[in-house]
């Protein structure tokens, strides 16, 4: 697993409202939060975390940093992420919602050129239950265990985690890849990471309408993933062309109405079913389907 309690973590925007709430929570959960950055607040101290004006200054003072969690306002995200990349940080988690798509295009080009992993934007981040919090997942909903969760949303993911926990199915990781239209890491990327992760035995994929991430995931699972995957798709009854919250969760009126009907819940569920991936009708079915998949694994072994 590329993320572990050994990761040395930075919080950019530690003096922003959300950063100020979650930095101490992350630290209390065991995350090695070595520094915070908020321009204009340098030389201060926040719950024992040293705060700097620049990422470079933070690294000069506290040493190398593996991961940054970004809480700055949407139009400052690109700059914060580029600053982190320029300072040699290769894992960037963007919590902030609503980053303009063309900012993300520029950021992701730079991330590709520097082999940087970008998670988000509009992401609850990553939680490794009992070990590490890189974002805003409510820690009490999660318990350690064998189920990896990959999702595009926040509160629904918390709900699923809680239902899994209540069913006695702990989680190896919870990853939110982000709800904006243009995001960094993809479902296939995380499926591959969890396929290789020795602590993950089954994967729960929580999708929603908009884009073709779930279709891409379905193809990738069919071709490259051996571990059992259970899926859920939100938005069967969402009004077409309206934004419900996530910039990404919208069924675009297709340009020219060309091309196949992607982006709808039906299209995604069909793609998953074609790839023989069980799709839960409701969140409460997820633990049942996961248990079934794990039992099957035990039988096979």
């Amino acid at each position, binding site marked *: 697993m590329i993320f572990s309690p050994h990761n040395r973590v930075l919080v950019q925007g530690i003096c922003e409202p*959300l950063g100020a709430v979650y930095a101490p929570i992350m630290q209390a959960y065991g995350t090695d939060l070595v520094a915070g950055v908020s321009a204009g607040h340098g030389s201060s101290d926040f719950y024992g975390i040293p705060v700097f004006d620049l990422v470079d200054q933070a690294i000069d003072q506290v040493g190398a940093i593996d991961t940054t969690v970004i809480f700055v306002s949407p139009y400052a995200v690109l700059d914060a992420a580029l600053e982190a990349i320029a300072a040699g940080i290769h894992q960037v988690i963007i919590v902030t*919602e609503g980053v303009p798509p063309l900012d993300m295009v520029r950021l992701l080009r730079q991330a590709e050129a520097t082999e940087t992993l970008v998670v988000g934007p509009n992401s*609850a981040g990553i939680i490794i239950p009992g070990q590490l919090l890189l974002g805003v997942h409510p820690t009490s909903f999660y318990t350690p265990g064998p189920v990896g969760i990959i999702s595009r949303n926040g*509160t629904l993911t918390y709900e699923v985690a809680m239902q899994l926990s209540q069913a006695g199915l702990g989680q190896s990781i919870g990853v939110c890849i982000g709800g904006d239209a243009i995001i960094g890491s993809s479902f296939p990327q995380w499926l591959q990471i969890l396929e290789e992760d020795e602590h993950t035995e089954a994967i729960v994929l929580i999708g*929603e309408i908009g884009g073709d991430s779930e279709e891409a995931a379905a193809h990738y699972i069919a071709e490259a993933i051996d571990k059992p995957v259970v899926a859920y798709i939100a938005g069967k009854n969402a*009004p077409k062309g309206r934004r419900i*919250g996530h910039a990404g969760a919208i069924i675009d009126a297709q340009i020219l109405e060309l091309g196949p009907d992607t982006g709808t819940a039906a299209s995604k569920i069909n793609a998953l079913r074609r790839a023989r991936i069980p799709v839960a009708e409701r969140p409460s079915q997820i633990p049942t389907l996961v248990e079934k998949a794990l039992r099957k694994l035990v039988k096979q072994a």
Partner: protein
Amino acid sequence: MDLLEYQAKELFQTVGIPIPPSQRIERPKDIKSLTIPYPIALKSQVYIGGRGRMGGIRFVENTIDAIAAAQSIFNLPIMGEYPKVLLAEAKYEVEQEFYLAVILNRSIRRPVLLGSVKGGMNVQQHVDQMQHVVVEQDFSPYYARRLTIKMGLSGDLIEAVSSIVEKMYHLFATKDLDLVEINPLGISSDGKLIALDGKVSVNDDALPRQTAFAGLIGDSDGDEHNPQQTGCPITLDPDGQIGILCNGAGLTMTTIDLICAAGGKPVSFLNLGSETQAGVSASLLKERLAQGLEQLAQIKKVRVLLVHLVTGLLPDDEMAEVIAGFIRRRSREPRGISEIRPDTLITHTVRIPQMVVRLVGRSHNLENTGNEKAVNAYLAAAQVIVVESLDDAVAQTVAQARKWAK
């Protein structure tokens, strides 16, 4: 946010994309002060595509016909939308019609140039002619030339059409557009190019920094074309009885899906927003919850209100406290019949929909404070149905709605 055709063309003009001489018509009598020569096209300025096929574009030769045509277009709804303004435009004779567009592709996360030599109304019949070029790195004009070559152009048309695509890309990149489209791009017999129709969509998340569009936001039809506006309930099924107050897009959609799957009819829903918004905080979430309760309670059709919150920002009891506060405020109105003027009597009558509440807050199940018990007792006393699981919440909500529907 979509722009109307005339707004898109004003934008084209700023970067030197040629457009026909034109004038805005706000009412039929404006036709009399036209300065462009006949024949002209009169075009309904609506946000919906395909108006040509529905009679939203008329060609006229003189003032009398033009006034009549303007009157009829003003009164012609396009998919339910009436135009507030028409565009009167010089009629152009062209030999060929091309299609050009710049869009952002979500899957490859790059802008894409689109082009076809079969543009105009029939572009969909010639989908096989549509060419595309992915803008992998920083844009440079050779991307536009690649598109023109793929489209099959040669000679002077290569540079002429490339130059239009360059200008479209410049708008796309500097104005944070989701889409810029010219269809058709007319090519006259002497090789001149002109944008006969255009479509521009500005990215909602980028709108606040695109101050040039600030004036247009007020112009548009409210949230219909600016879906970013939050804080207003969205109507789903006008015949429904269920209101849904939820937080987070995925959870809101799931809740709607479950209600529908159980046979319930959601009339309206409100998403309080995700926990990744810059500036969000525990107190802001409480404020939004209080406001959201008021907003949904004011929708008369909402007979059953499902409040479904899952959050890491607030503990259960603080959310329940806000709901209790809402009920207390509502219960105190009206304070006495003497205080109410006759015309406000009806609206101010106490009306609280039947509430079904599921709250999953920070450290849920871990901290059962005394306060939580007290608040829950208050909610129970106020006939609020407090449930533990999502499935129960859905079942109770639908059951309550059935009572009302009877």
